[in-house]
């Protein structure tokens, strides 16, 4: 027969496994870590209302923080936001698989029609898209418009290309290939970046063009801002476009880009807020600044939107969503700068608040 020790080991392993799973499934929600301060009034609901959202990775760090903070102050609202990329977020929202979506490419007219026009676009925050790079010993890399468009077009292939050296005298540029990293998924960040490239470079406009996903002449794909940042971090000689927060928190240097005025500018939060405030938001709240003017303006900046329904069947959900959004547009904005996002200009924030009120 089976030896006693063998049997005992097997039994212990089995019991351990079962016990462990039982112990875990009994777990309730985690206790609050901080004492809630006076903030948005909690939503009156029968049990906790769960809001399911997915979409852009661009604002994901900020949204996670917002929803976590809001959830701690309002125990009856749980917001589950999954960073899946703008493309996936729009699709899930249209198909009704989520309660709200998020996208830096807002929504196209076609997509709004697919959602049966029951859509309201709400700019919640804004950010810079930076070109993060991985070059040992090279700080403050300056890239002219011709150069950075050329890098992504594949016409400039090596780091020690004379055109790059020209704007970076004294920098030790290695002889290695430039490893371009772009997005492999449908991305609002890609949309904004390609829109900017098309605005400053004819070859890009007639070539790969603008879109959430385009035919990249060169480079490898990473999934979401996270994946591109990770690739850049792990690959010597890499360069890619990511949201500023990702570069800042992972300590990857960002290139100084030549703006419309011909100056090399580093990503800046205040300067971008000014650039955005200069543009009037139309009624449907979709606006892009593809190439801001001004000496101090950083060239690639965008709003990012939350996609909500104008009318919800579940009134508890719409009430919960409204309270989350309102909190984010007021108290939440105080957290933006600390997390490297551009706070909404005052006028814009109040317009969006008014729009949130129209949600049923």
């Amino acid at each position, binding site marked *: 027969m089976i030896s006693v020790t063998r049997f005992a080991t097997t039994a212990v392993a089995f019991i351990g496994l079962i016990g462990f799973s039982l112990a875990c499934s009994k777990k309730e929600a985690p206790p609050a870590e901080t004492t809630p301060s006076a903030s948005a009034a909690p939503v009156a609901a029968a049990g906790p209302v769960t809001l399911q959202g997915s979409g852009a990775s661009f604002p994901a760090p900020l949204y996670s923080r917002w929803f976590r903070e809001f959830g701690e102050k309002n125990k009856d609202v749980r917001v589950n936001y999954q960073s*899946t*990329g703008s*493309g*996936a*977020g*729009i*699709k899930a929202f*249209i198909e009704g698989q989520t309660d709200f979506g998020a996208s830096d490419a807002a929504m196209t007219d076609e997509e709004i029609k697919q959602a049966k026009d029951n859509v309201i676009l709400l700019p919640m925050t804004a950010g810079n898209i930076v070109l993060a790079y991985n070059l040992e010993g090279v700080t403050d890399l300056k890239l002219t418009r011709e150069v950075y468009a050329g890098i992504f077009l594949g016409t400039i292939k090596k780091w020690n290309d004379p055109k790059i050296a020209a704007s970076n005298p004294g920098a030790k540029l290695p002889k*290695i*290939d430039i*490893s371009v990293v772009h997005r*492999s*998924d*449908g991305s609002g960040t890609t949309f904004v970046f390609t829109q900017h490239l098309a605005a400053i470079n004819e070859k890009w406009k007639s070539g790969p063009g603008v*879109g*959430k*996903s*385009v*035919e*990249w002449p060169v*480079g*490898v*794909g*990473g*999934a979401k801002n996270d994946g591109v940042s990770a*690739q850049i971090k*792990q*690959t010597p*000689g*890499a360069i890619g476009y990511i949201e500023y927060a990702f570069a800042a928190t992972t300590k990857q240097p960002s290139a100084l880009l030549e703006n419309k005025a011909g100056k090399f500018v580093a990503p800046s939060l205040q300067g971008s807020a000014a650039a955005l405030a200069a543009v009037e938001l139309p009624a449907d709240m979709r606006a892009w600044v593809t190439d801001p003017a001004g000496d101090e303006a950083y060239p690639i900046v965008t709003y990012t939107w939350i996609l909500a329904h104008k009318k919800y069947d579940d009134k508890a959900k719409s009430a919960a969503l409204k309270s989350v959004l309102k909190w984010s547009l007021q108290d939440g904005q105080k957290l933006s700068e600390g997390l490297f996002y551009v706070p909404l200009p005052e006028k814009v924030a109040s317009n969006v608040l008014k729009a949130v009120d129209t949600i049923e």
Partner: protein
Amino acid sequence: MASTGMKAGPDLTEAFRSPVSRPPSAWQKNFDVAFKYLAHAFGAGVVLLLGGVVFEVMRHAKTAIADYGFKFLTTSTWDANRADFGILPEILGTLYTSILALGMGGFLGITVALVLSQGFVPRKVELAMKNVIELLAAIPSVVYGLWGIFVLVPLLRGPAGWLNEHFESIPFFSTRLSGPGILPAALVLSIMILPTVTAISREAMAAVPKRLAAAAYGLGATRWEVIFNVTLPTSAGGIFGALVLGFGRALGETMALAMLVGNANVFGFSLFSPGNTLAALLANHFPEAGNVEVGALMYAALVLMLITLAVNALGSWIMLHATRELKGLG
């Protein structure tokens, strides 16, 4: 002392009390019939399941096939906006990585199978090695992907750079390894198919009648002469089946490739260039595909399914044939 007479038999009263020992009651008769039908139904259910999977994929791919036709298999762009889809780089990438994996993993797998079945090491070591190889198969694909990103790719960067610098003219080394690429993906893939190839080859080798090997030894052959002249030729059918099944497994592998192959819609023979495979394409684009893209992805899924089904069916058929052959020898 009793010369004839019956032995005192075992006490059968309990046995006669058991329900099995009585003629079946009406309920039990009905249960019998019901159970039989249930078993048949579920057996057929498995066939329906396979049919269902194939049918669903074909159904969703139908419109895409009509729209894109054969061009889908021969072009290279993947543009959801302009509805321009082509999976040529993915088909080639799938085949290329799987063939590379087969070459490396197959060779290693057969070697390990030989070591495990030809008495090179003591029994206890054989058992330990067998367990280790089986555990290789148990590790989830996504963990191999994680390991590949943080261990394998950095490890390969140095040698790959050296090879690229000195042998750039050879097509295999013509680009630089920037990170993920064909080689890391193929290496991880070969690790993943190794257990399959080893297990099936081992069975095939163990089925070689010992008399044949003994005869060769008796004539003075060395161990490796026996292996090359007796064991391998005789188990060739089974080994071939093992390789085909390993190949089939490599074709369908998703996660490790999605994480390591680079997700670029290009195909090149360079081991260090990024590429893409059908399964990785599906994993990357499916979560976010709109209706137009879903159709194209279903078409790609259909292609993947047909390739893997064909290869696996071929492998199963070869195995069936090979085991029949060996039974004849016994």
